[in-house]
C-alpha cells in the first residue's frame, strides 16, 4: 500500500487520484443521506453545473500554470453576461447571433489588458488583475446604470446553458468538453503549450532559449478572459438575465479546483485532467453540502478544512521547494 502511494507521488498523479477518490467517497457518503445521489439524473445535473466552473477553471489553470493568478474573474464574467445580453438588445433579429461572440470578445479584451499589464508592464498579476477587476466593475456599472441589468438573453444562449440537444447530454457540458479538449491539445501537443509550462517553471530559461515569453503570457490571459466571459454568457443564458457580481462565486472555487487537481500554484506543473477532477470534486462538495441540512457555518469550515487536508496529503511534490 505504501509502495503504491510512493509510486503515485513520484509520478505526480497523486492529486488526480486523490481528488477522484474523494469525489467517489463524497458520492457514497451522500448516498447514505439519499439514494438520489447516485442516480444518472443527479450526476448529469452535477456535470452540467460543473461545466460552468469548469470553463472558468480552464482559464484560471492556464494563468496559474504560468505562475500567475487572475483575480479579474468575478467582474469579467459579469461583463460577458451583461455585454452579450446588451448586444442581443442592440442588434436584434439576425444580429442577435453575434451576441455570444461579442460577449466573449469583451472578455478577451479584458484578458488582453491583463496580459499587457502582467507581461509587458511586469506588474505582479495578483495586483494588476485586481485593478482590472475594479475597472470591469466600473464598466458594468456605467452600462447598467447601477441597476440590475435589464437586457435579456437570446434563445441561443438559453439553449446552450440549459438544453440537452445531443443524446441527453447537457449542452453546457458539451461546451466544457470542447473547450477542455482544445486546452488539452494546446497544453500537450503544441509549442505554445510547452512554452506555457516552461514559463511557469522558469521564465528566464525559457527566454534565453529563444521563446517570446511575454507573448505566451499575454495569450494565456486573453484566453482566460474569454473563458470567464463565456461563463458569463452561459450564466445569463441559464437565468435569461445577467446580474451583478455574477462571477463572484466562481473565483475561489476555480482556483481551489485547479490546485486540488494537482496544479502547482507557483506554476510549471499540472495536468488538465487534474483540473477536471478538481472541478467535479468541488461541485459535488458544494452540492452535497448545500443539500444536507447543516448550518452554513459548518459548510464553510468543512469546505476549507477538506482543502487543507487534501493539500497536506498530496506529498512533497506539491509543497514548496526547499
Amino acid at each position: 500500500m505504501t509502495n503504491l502511494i510512493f509510486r503515485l507521488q513520484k509520478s505526480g498523479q497523486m492529486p488526480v487520484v486523490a481528488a477522484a477518490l474523494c469525489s467517489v467517497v463524497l458520492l457514497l457518503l451522500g448516498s447514505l443521506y439519499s439514494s438520489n445521489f447516485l442516480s444518472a439524473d443527479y450526476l448529469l445535473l452535477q456535470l452540467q453545473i460543473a461545466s460552468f466552473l469548469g470553463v472558468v477553471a480552464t482559464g484560471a489553470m492556464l494563468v496559474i500554470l504560468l505562475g500567475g493568478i487572475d483575480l479579474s474573474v468575478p467582474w469579467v464574467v459579469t461583463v460577458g453576461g451583461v455585454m452579450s445580453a446588451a448586444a442581443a438588445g442592440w442588434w436584434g433579429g439576425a444580429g442577435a447571433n453575434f451576441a455570444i461572440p461579442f460577449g466573449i470578445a469583451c472578455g478577451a479584451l479584458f484578458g488582453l489588458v491583463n496580459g499587457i499589464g502582467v507581461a509587458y508592464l511586469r506588474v505582479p498579476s495578483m495586483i494588476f488583475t485586481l485593478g482590472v477587476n475594479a475597472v470591469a466593475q466600473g464598466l458594468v456599472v456605467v452600462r447598467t446604470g447601477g441597476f440590475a441589468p435589464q437586457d435579456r438573453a437570446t434563445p441561443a444562449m438559453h439553449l446552450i446553458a440549459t438544453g440537452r440537444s445531443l443524446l441527453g447530454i447537457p449542452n453546457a457540458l458539451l461546451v466544457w468538453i470542447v473547450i477542455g479538449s482544445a486546452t488539452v491539445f494546446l497544453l500537450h501537443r503544441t509549442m505554445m503549450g510547452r512554452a506555457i509550462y516552461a514559463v511557469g517553471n522558469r521564465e528566464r530559461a525559457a527566454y534565453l532559449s529563444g521563446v517570446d515569453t511575454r507573448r505566451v503570457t499575454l495569450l494565456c490571459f486573453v484566453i482566460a478572459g474569454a473563458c470567464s466571459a463565456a461563463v458569463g454568457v452561459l450564466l445569463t443564458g441559464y437565468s435569461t438575465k445577467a446580474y451583478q457580481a455574477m462571477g463572484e462565486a466562481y473565483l475561489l472555487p476555480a482556483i481551489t479546483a485547479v490546485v486540488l487537481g494537482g496544479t502547482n500554484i507557483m506554476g510549471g506543473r499540472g495536468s488538465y485532467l487534474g483540473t477536471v477532477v478538481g472541478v467535479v470534486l468541488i461541485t459535488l462538495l458544494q452540492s452535497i453540502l448545500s443539500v444536507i441540512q447543516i448550518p452554513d457555518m459548518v459548510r464553510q469550515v468543512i469546505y476549507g478544512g477538506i482543502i487543507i487536508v487534501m493539500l497536506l496529503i498530496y506529498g512533497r511534490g506539491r509543497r514548496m521547494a526547499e
Partner: protein
Amino acid sequence: MNLEEFRFSFREHRGAFAAAAMFVVIFALFIAKYQTGWTVPVITTAANKGVLLAIVAMAQTLPVLTAGIDLSVGMVFVLANCLASHLVVGTPAQAALGIVVVLAVGTLCGLINGLIIVYGRLQPIITTMATGTIYFGLALALRPVPGGGVQEDLADLLTGAQLGGIPSSVLVLVAIVVLVWMPYRRSTIGRAALAIGSAEGAAYMSGVPINRTKVFAYALSGLLASLGGLFLTFITYSGEASMALGGSYTLSSIAAVVIGGTSLAGGAGSAIGSIFGSFVLRTIGDLLFVFDLEPLWQPLFQGVILLVAVSLGSLQLLKLRNRLDMFK
C-alpha cells in the same frame, strides 16, 4: 539623524515616501475643492474609514514582507468583529477581558496560518484562501444574522475626536505603529522577515531562523487583523458575518500594500507605506465625488486610477538596459 543617514533611509523607504506624497497630493486636491464643510464629525468619519483599512493593510504587510501573502486577513477581521460584538460588552472590566480574548483569537488564527505554511510546507496563497473560509465559517457561527453590541462608552471614545479635533482613530493608529510596528521592525525577528523576503536562501545560509520568523509574522498579522475587526465593532456597534466585506478588505489590503510601496516579492517595504496606501485608496473615491464626477462613472475611474497607481513602477522599465532583469 543627519543628512547622510536620511539619504539612505530615503533610499530604503522610497516606496513609503512616494505613497505619502501621493496621499498629500490627493488630499490637497480634495481640500482645494472642498473648502467648506470640514467639521469635526466629517473629519472623524473619514479618518475612521481610513484607519480601518490601514490596520488591515498593516496586517497584510507582515506576511508580504516575507514574500508570502495572507488571503484570510479579511475573514479574521470579520471574525474578530463578530466575536467582539458578543464579548466586548458590559462593564469596563468585562469589555477589557473581551478585547483580550478577541485579540488572542486573532493571533491564534494567524498562528494557525503560519504553522500550516511553515510545517505543512504549503504555499501561503492557497493555505490562507482555505483557512479564510474556515475563519468565516466561525464568524458565521457567532453571528448567523447581524446583531450584538459593544461597550458604548469605549466605542464612542475610540471613534470620536479628541482635543483639537484630532480623531481618536488616528491616535489609535499612531499607537499601533509605535507599539507594534516600530518595535517589530527594529527587532531581530522583524529584520529577519525582511531578510527572508529578500533572499531566503542567503538568509538560511546566514543562520536566520526561517521557521520561527515566518510563523511569528503570520501570527502578528492575525493580531493586527483582529485589532481591525475590533475597531470595526466600535464603529458599527454590531457584528456581521459578511463574506463580501471580508473579501473586499482582503483585496483592498493587498492594493493598499502595493500602493504603499511594498513589493509583493518581499524584502522591501514598510507598514507605514501601507498606511498611506490605504489613505490613498480611501480618498480616491471621495475625491471623485468632490469633483462632481457623475456617480455612475466613479467605480470605473476608481478602478482605472488603481490600475495606474500600481503600474507606476513600470516606468522604470524604460530605463532597462538588460532585458534579462525583467525576468526573475
